Structure formats: structure tokens, C-alpha cells
């Protein structure tokens, strides 16, 4: 009698133990490589009942953008980005920014030290004040106008990109404000419209760096890059990289801070870079244009779902 009871009790105990283990894990009990029996927690999601702040939502963000540490001209402007979040971590988007250009401190320091164009022309005529004589002087340095009119502007730029959001979380500020945030990284195609406004009386060289025939005469290059057209206008296509952070103020509004790099071939000074005494396409080089952007992202639809 006692033996029967002990067997029944042992079977009951075993059955209960197995039942407990199965209930603790939805998966069949996995066995680690060490042979230890584990529950399903190591394979589980890190966060449950998480608000899906981006998945399946459109993001529209009016934004402000400015260059970081520009060489000759700061590019400052406003625009917008439109992004669709395919999933929690993947999204596609476009950004466009209209900008104005402001001379950097370097340019502001250089310009007052240069001669005006009129003064330079007079000085180049020599002591007799007549051009074409043997006393003409070649002045290598540019005039104020030649220097400033060669600098390019970037009235419009933007990118089409794919964005990856591998990090998300929440933070407590001063133990009072609890907000969600995420970090994202972007890569895509950059485009930029660059212009320069050098008038024909300043950039008057019609054959920079080359010889031309005039009747039976050959006119050699003047070896003066200061009067060459800057050749830095047009549409540029290149590489776009970015990284930023969303700080969610509520379920559908977030502060968006981003550092963006629009990299493309450019010659920002519009001057002779490779020292061949002419401004040509060969003076272009692949440059990184770093921008800092700040915007307010609005998510559509404004309601948010949760993970299981």
C-alpha cells in the first residue's frame, strides 16, 4: 500500500515539475550547449508592450540646418524631411533644404586686406597708367571681387536615403521627465545645387589654361586664375551619410537632431586648387559638407500601437 502510494506521489511530483517547466517557457525547453536546461528568456524580446513610435508611420519634419566648420561660406537654411518607417528599424526618406550663404570668419578677414577691382586694374597698368605697355605689372593676388565672386553658394541641397534605427530606449531627465528616444543612421544619395555669381567683367577669361587661335595668331593662356570662370555651378550628385536622435515629446511629436554629411565633388573657393594657374574641372575634389540639423518630427497617424 505504502509502495503504491510512494509511486503515485513520485509520478505526481515528476508530472508537476515538467508542467511547471513547460509553463515557464512558451518554447519547448531548450538545452544549452553546456547541457543546462534553460527557459526561453534569453531568446525573448528585450522590451515588451513597447510603444511602436515609428513603425508604419510617416514622419514629416520641418527642420533647420547649418554647416559645421565650413571653410569659406556657412550654408544656413530651412527645409523638411519626409520619411516612411517600414518597420521598427528600417525607413526610407527624402530631405530637401533651401539655404542662404554667409561668409565665414576667414573670408571676412581676408576681404578687407585685398584691393578692390578698380584699384587692382589701375595698379596693373603700371606707373604710366596705360595698359599694354612694358611697365605693366602682373598682380598675382585676387581683388576683393575676384576672390568673393568665385566662392560658391548652395541654394538647395538634399538627399534620398535609407535609415536604420538600431537603438531605442527611454531616459529620465532630472528624475522628472521620462521620454523615449532612438538613435538612427542614414545612408543614401546626396544632391546639391551650387552656384557662383561671377560677372563677365570679373571672370573674363574665355580660354582658361588653354591656347586659342585668333586668325593666324595663337593666343596662349594668360596663366591668371583670378579672372577664370569658377566652374563650380551646377547640380552635384554624391554620397549622403547621417546620424541622429529622436527625442519623443509625446506619441507623435519628437525633437529631431541630426548630423548630416553631403559628400560630392566641389571646389568651394572657385579658385585654382591644383596650382596649374587655371581654374578647370580638375580643381574639383570630393569633399564632405557637414551639417547640423534640428527639427520637429510629426508622426502620422498620430495614434500609436504597442508590441505584444
Amino acid at each position, binding site marked *: 500500500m505504502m509502495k503504491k502510494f*510512494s509511486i503515485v506521489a513520485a509520478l505526481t511530483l515528476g508530472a508537476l515539475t515538467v508542467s511547471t517547466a513547460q*509553463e515557464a517557457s512558451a518554447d519547448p525547453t531548450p538545452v544549452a550547449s553546456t547541457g543546462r536546461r534553460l527557459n526561453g528568456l534569453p531568446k525573448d524580446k528585450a522590451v515588451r508592450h513597447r510603444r511602436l513610435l515609428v513603425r508604419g508611420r510617416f514622419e514629416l519634419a520641418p527642420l533647420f540646418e547649418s554647416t559645421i*566648420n565650413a*571653410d569659406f561660406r556657412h550654408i544656413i537654411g530651412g527645409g523638411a524631411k519626409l520619411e516612411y518607417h517600414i518597420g521598427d*528599424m528600417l525607413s526610407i526618406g527624402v530631405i530637401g533644404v533651401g539655404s542662404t550663404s554667409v561668409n565665414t570668419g576667414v573670408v571676412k578677414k581676408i576681404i578687407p586686406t585685398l584691393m578692390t577691382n578698380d584699384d587692382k586694374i589701375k595698379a596693373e597698368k603700371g606707373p604710366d597708367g596705360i595698359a599694354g605697355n612694358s611697365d605693366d605689372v602682373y598682380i598675382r593676388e585676387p581683388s576683393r571681387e575676384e576672390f568673393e565672386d568665385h566662392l560658391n553658394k548652395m541654394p538647395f541641397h538634399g538627399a534620398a536615403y535609407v535609415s536604420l534605427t538600431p537603438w531605442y*530606449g527611454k*531616459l529620465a*531627465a532630472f528624475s522628472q521627465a521620462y521620454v523615449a528616444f532612438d538613435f538612427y543612421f542614414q545612408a543614401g544619395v546626396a544632391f546639391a545645387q551650387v552656384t557662383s555669381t561671377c560677372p563677365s567683367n570679373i571672370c573674363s577669361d574665355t580660354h582658361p589654361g588653354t591656347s586659342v587661335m585668333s586668325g593666324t595668331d595663337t593666343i596662349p593662356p594668360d596663366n591668371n586664375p583670378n579672372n577664370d570662370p569658377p566652374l563650380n555651378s551646377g547640380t552635384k550628385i554624391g554620397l549622403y551619410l547621417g546620424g541622429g536622435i529622436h527625442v519623443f515629446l509625446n506619441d507623435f511629436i519628437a525633437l529631431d537632431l541630426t548630423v548630416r554629411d553631403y559628400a560630392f565633388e566641389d571646389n568651394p573657393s572657385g579658385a585654382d586648387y591644383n*596650382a596649374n594657374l587655371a581654374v578647370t574641372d580638375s580643381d574639383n575634389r570630393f569633399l564632405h559638407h557637414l551639417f547640423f540639423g534640428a527639427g520637429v518630427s510629426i508622426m502620422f497617424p498620430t495614434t500609436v500601437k504597442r508590441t505584444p
Partner: protein
Amino acid sequence: MKPLRMRSLHRSALVVAALALAASPAFADKGKKGGGSKAPAPAPAPAPAPSGGGDAGGEIEMDSSAPADSKPAASGTAPAADGSEIDMGEPEPGPGDLNADIAKSDAANAAAIKAGPVTKTKLSWQDIVVVVRKPFLKAHRTELMPMFGTTMNDNMVRHYAVGGSISYFLTDVLAIGVEGFYYRPSFREPFDLVARQARRLPTVNTYNWSGALDFHYVPVYGKFAILDRKLVTWEVQFTAGIGAGQSEVEPRDKKYPGFTNLLIEPNLGASMRFFLAKWLTVNIGVRDYVFLDKFEPVNRAPGMNETAAEAKDNADTKLINNVMFQIGLSFWVPTGFEYTTFR
């Protein structure tokens, strides 16, 4: 013998049942849901109505001077306000005096219940503090951080800096520390372009070293998930400090000597700290070192600012913001910590 065997059988059955229950929390859960045969825990018994000779749970002081024919507390008598003490010497209304009973009852109710609109309060929820253990405590620990830095806002010279800091955390959010850097300059593209294209030699200073006494405050604490798998905690630290440094003039014409400047450098900054282990963190931040620097005078020729002392006396002074990006790996001493519950 038989009764004894039966008793031992019952004992072994109880042991087996206890083991089964201990091995199976789910079993207990089912029991709670009503599926089990166990009866729920008995509810606390209501306090009995105060009556003469009854034990109300509190202390009842019987008036020893009461006459022998005094009646015990009548059923309609209001209990004492605190419910724990009943004054049996209180004069009793006459039997059957309903109006007096009602009036007394109303008065007691009015005193017990505050008139006015019923308002919901979250006081009880605010009292409940759910605290997830911070995985990393810094109080009374020392942070040793070798660092690397680079200039962010100088388009002529980029400085690369190596250095370190030692900080002692007075609390989990406040720290005091010292830092030091050694700088190496690297001239950027515009430095050459300005000379070649605009025929102008830039006036620049380079930095040699700096040191500072810093105060740190950590107001922001958070965590994030990487690829929805790995949780990492991080925090934001603000820093303010005061220190000194040295800059050196790069002479435009190398035949003239340069000179050095001792700088007083207040600094402000913010950084993020990512916790990797109990003794290891990664810090990334930005710091703005503000100082008045002296630059080589524009007019330097034979007989004019020729020597370093003359040039320094006639130097141009300018307020400089040297914004540095810094990244470092922190080692914490002691390497472990004893957990303290925060509220």
C-alpha cells in the same frame, strides 16, 4: 503498531505534497484562480459591535465607579471616535429617545465625514515607487579615463589631443575631477588654400597642453535596446570647470620667433556615458574651452615687433571658443560596488 504506521504514512504524504507545491509555482497559481481545491485565505473577521463585556479588539475601560444597576452600552450608542476606547461613564440618553439618538448619530457622522465634493487623488499611486535596480552605481567610486579629443570648430588648424581625467563621485550624480591634455596640431586645407589662392598668410596659434579642475553633474539617465535584444544603460553628464593651458604662436615668417601664452580656460561641456561592465564605461562628449588668446601682430618687420617679447606686448587678443569632441574609456575603482536601493 498499525495506528503508528498510518501516522507515518500521513507524514510522508504531507512531505511529498509540500515538495510538489514547492516545485510548482504554476500549481499554486492555478489554485488561486479557483481551479484548486484549496480554500482561499479567510477574510479578516469584522470587528464586533461594542457591547458590555465584549472584546472589541481595542481596550475597553469599564468605569469601576458605575453603579451596579448601570446598563451596558446600548446598541444605538455611538462608539468613540477612534474606535479603540469607549467611555462607559458618558451619560446615556433615556431608553426609547429616538430623536436624541438620531441627533447624536448625525453629529458623529458629520464629524467623521467631511462635507464637499468627492475628488479622486493619485496620492496612493505616488506613494508606490517602482524602482528598477540601477545596473551601475558611481557613488564613492573613482573614474580613471584616458581620452582622445579633436577640434571641431577651427577651419585652419585641427588639434588632436590625448590625455586623461580622474574623477571622484561624491554621490551618484555629483563628481569632482581633474583632467589634462597634450595637443598636436594638423593644418587643414584652407590654411594652404588661403596662402596660395588669396596670397594671405593666416595668423594661427596652436595649443600645447591644458589642464582643468572639473565638476560633473549627471541629470539624465536612460537605457536603450540594441536591435531589440541587448539593453544598454547610459547617462548624460554636464561638466563645468576651470583650468589653464598654453598656446603657441605660429609665426607667419619663420625668421621671426614665436611666443607662448598662458591661458586661463574655463570650460563647459556635456557627455554621454555608456555602461559596459561594472568597472568599464565609454564616454563621448563635447567640451567648450573658452579663453583669451594672444595672436601674432599683423605688422611684424625689422625693427617692428621683431623679438618675441615685443610681439607679445603688441599682440592682438581675441576670445576663443575651442570646441573639442572627446571620447574615452573609463575604468572604475573599486571595480565593484554594493547595491543600495534608491528612492
